[in-house]
């Protein structure tokens, strides 16, 4: 390795120590492919926990199955690697049992846009105070490259060698229609913005839906690559009124991939707050 690279790695390591986020990590090395966007997402989640001063023992993570599902295995928190598509109900049970805990649901696009899609409308309308991180790489990665519910139309995949015949779902539009009280999109290549969004989502009292765009560097060399994503994402402009549902819906439908907070509603009580009023 040349000196420049070594210096760069040293600098990064210093940065890691300074930010003190290794405390949320186990010694387990992630099983993700080199270059995967999930590293960045993990870093952002860890950084958010650190900046919010969350204690390890007060964090509960439920994950589904797939590359994203492995997330809690690498984290030194209370983790539950559940079933395909079912991180949301398990996370909901955790929160309903112990309101004082900070609860994350981790899901891939296969999890929550596919097999567990039926849980999303209901967690949204119940407004249970958990944060759902949707790691969307628009492909089935762990089973090696089949189409998912967010794979673009006509993309060739291992399950659709002649092109994907299905139209992709739009996670942000769906979450908005379902009445989620916090809806955001982040990009795995923009750690600073991602962390800012995550912190808002985690502290939001109610259900937070965070759609995270990330490439699958192994199974999608065409559409959602680092290069294409970087060219297509754009941060939502500062003056954007994120209490305006119609506006949120309008920009969610654009082909340009906006990142930032689409919608943030404060006036709906969380599920447990509602019960307390009764």
């Amino acid at each position: 390795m040349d000196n420049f690279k070594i210096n760069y790695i040293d600098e990064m390591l210093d940065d890691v120590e300074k930010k003190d986020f290794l405390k949320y990590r186990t010694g387990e090395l992630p099983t993700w492919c080199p270059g995967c966007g999930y590293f960045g997402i993990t870093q952002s989640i860890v950084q958010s926990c650190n900046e919010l001063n969350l204690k390890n023992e007060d964090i509960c993570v439920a994950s589904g199955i797939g590359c994203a599902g492995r997330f809690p295995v690498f984290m030194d928190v209370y983790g539950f690697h559940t079933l395909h598509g079912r991180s949301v109900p398990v996370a909901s049970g955790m929160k309903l049992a112990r309101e004082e805990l900070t609860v994350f649901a981790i899901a891939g696009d296969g999890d929550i846009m596919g097999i567990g899609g039926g849980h999303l409308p209901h967690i949204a309308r119940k407004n249970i105070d958990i944060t759902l991180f949707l790691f969307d790489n628009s492909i089935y990665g762990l089973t090696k490259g089949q189409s998912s519910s967010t794979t673009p139309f006509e993309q060739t995949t291992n399950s659709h060698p002649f092109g994907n015949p299905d139209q992709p779902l739009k996670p942000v539009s769906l979450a908005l229609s379902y009445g989620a009280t916090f809806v955001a999109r982040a990009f795995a290549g923009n750690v600073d913005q991602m962390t800012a969004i995550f912190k808002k989502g985690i502290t939001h009292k109610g259900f937070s839906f965070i759609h995270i765009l990330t490439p699958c560097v192994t199974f999608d060399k065409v559409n959602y690559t680092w290069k294409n994503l970087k060219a297509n994402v754009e941060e939502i402009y500062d003056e954007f009124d994120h209490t305006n549902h119609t506006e949120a819906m309008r920009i969610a439908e654009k082909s340009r991939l906006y990142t930032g907070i689409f919608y943030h509603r404060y006036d709906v009580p969380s599920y447990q707050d509602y019960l307390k009023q009764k």
Partner: protein
Amino acid sequence: MSNTDIVLEICGSAGEGTISSGEIFNRYISSIDFEIMSFDTYPSEIRGFGKCVAHSRFSTQKIFTPGKYTDILIALNDAHSISQLGHLKDTGVVIYDSKPPKYHEEDKSIVGWMEPGMISYGIPFNDLAQKAAGNSRGRNMVALGAVCALFGVDHEEFKNTIIQRYAKKKQIVIDNNVNSFVEGYNWANDNLTKIDSISFKKGKNKNEKESIIINGNQAVAKAAIDSELHLYAGYPITPATKIMEILSHELPKKNGIMLQTEDEISAIGNVLGAGFAGKRSMTATSGPGFALMTEFMGLSVMAQIPAVIVNSQRGGPSTGLPTKTEQSDFNAAVNGGTGDLPRFVIAPASVEECYDGTTLAFYLAEKYQTLVVILLDFFLSNSIRNIDEPTPPTEKMLNSNIAPNEKELKDYVRFKETKTGVSPRSIPGTPNGMYTTTGLENNERGKPQYDGKLHTKMSDMRYRKLNSALNDVPKPKWTGPKKDIDVGILSWGSSAGAAYEAATIANKNGHRVAVLSSLVVFPVNEVDLTKFCNESKQILIPELNYSGQYANFIASYINRPVERLNMVSGLPMASEDVLSKIDEMIAS
């Protein structure tokens, strides 16, 4: 004092007050110290004139079944009641409306369908109710008034029961009901000549303990509350829905939560989430919902997280017969799911056991960090009994999680191998107790790993829990002779009642019949089973399913043939059914 054992049925259309009059009758009969076994049948239609039957058996003796043949039939609606004559005793009594309302079918008077020898009393329910209250809604109360007059029941006390039943209603409702009742009582006294010999003034001697009238679903809900249930998550499904409805009232009082989920998968998912977070949680369902929960059942066992599922069985398979009773989910409860999946299966045989089985389920689930299935059935869920106030769970049963101690938390190993198979489980919020559990095979620290040696070791640990628990659960109940048994009945679930009664009668007839029934049907207590079978010349397994699921299951434990009695009529098993099988076996 001679024994009294009477079956009374009230039959009418939905909306005629059939079920509520049955309820009032039960309350009164219980208050004068009879044992009750009661059962309501509803139409499957939501509205309209579907048939309702309130069936009550009451006795001075201990009873276990609702009784097959009726002594007294109150026909609020003749057209519906005609088919009830099929199981009316030869000298049974019919009380019917001698001037029924116009909307009843004219050509279907029940009198024309009665066999010679049966006794009928015609009372103008409709006219008397009109006279008392200005409308015909009190027809059912007129009938109850007539019952009091005919069978020597203290009508003042009965009137008080009616007042209590409607205590929360408006005064006019109470007045209308009471006036109709009195009208019926007076009319019957003045106009009827008693020609039957039935009377029931007083039950057995006064019981010291407080008694409550409760059905299986209510007993489960009460036990869950007493076991400090925090989260109930469920999806409506007959016949389990009532558990959800009761808990939606009761849980908020205890700061608990009733969560109505989008489906049964979400329900059991929430149960596991709450279990992981260290709170007691449960769901209740029936066949179709239970099938959906199968994948999570596996996760509960593999990830070692407590979960309690109540499955109130309906007739199956598939959507099946939602309002009929059957015991056909035994296989699904014991073997349902993929892979080697040890779990506990509890099958209460009575309303009392519904309570005890539920408190036991929470204890076992938490202590052994695994899945517990409670098998009820439509009959048990809805059968009403007056039982002694049940014994609430002990402190030990309420706090059964084995948590890691400080030393263990210094370097916490979540799935550490132990003799019992149970590794100390830390609860979120415990510093240094962090761990990740998974549905993947994993090593002692919860890290996914697939090597054969590890899988063998971990499978062994999961199964070891069952053996450890055998000392922790009540032993099978052995009733009847202990030696030289002609017919040994291996019974499970609600059909055990019929077995007890049949055995009692057979033993009175000079035979030697014993019953072995276990609250915990899986894992099997092989010691008691073998001993029982060794003492029995013949073995009989009666159950409400077609293929003999329990018989097939038991066959793998005992190396000998068993006689089977299988019924799928949708009705609970009757002692007569078991008795004729016993006679047949002894004769052969």
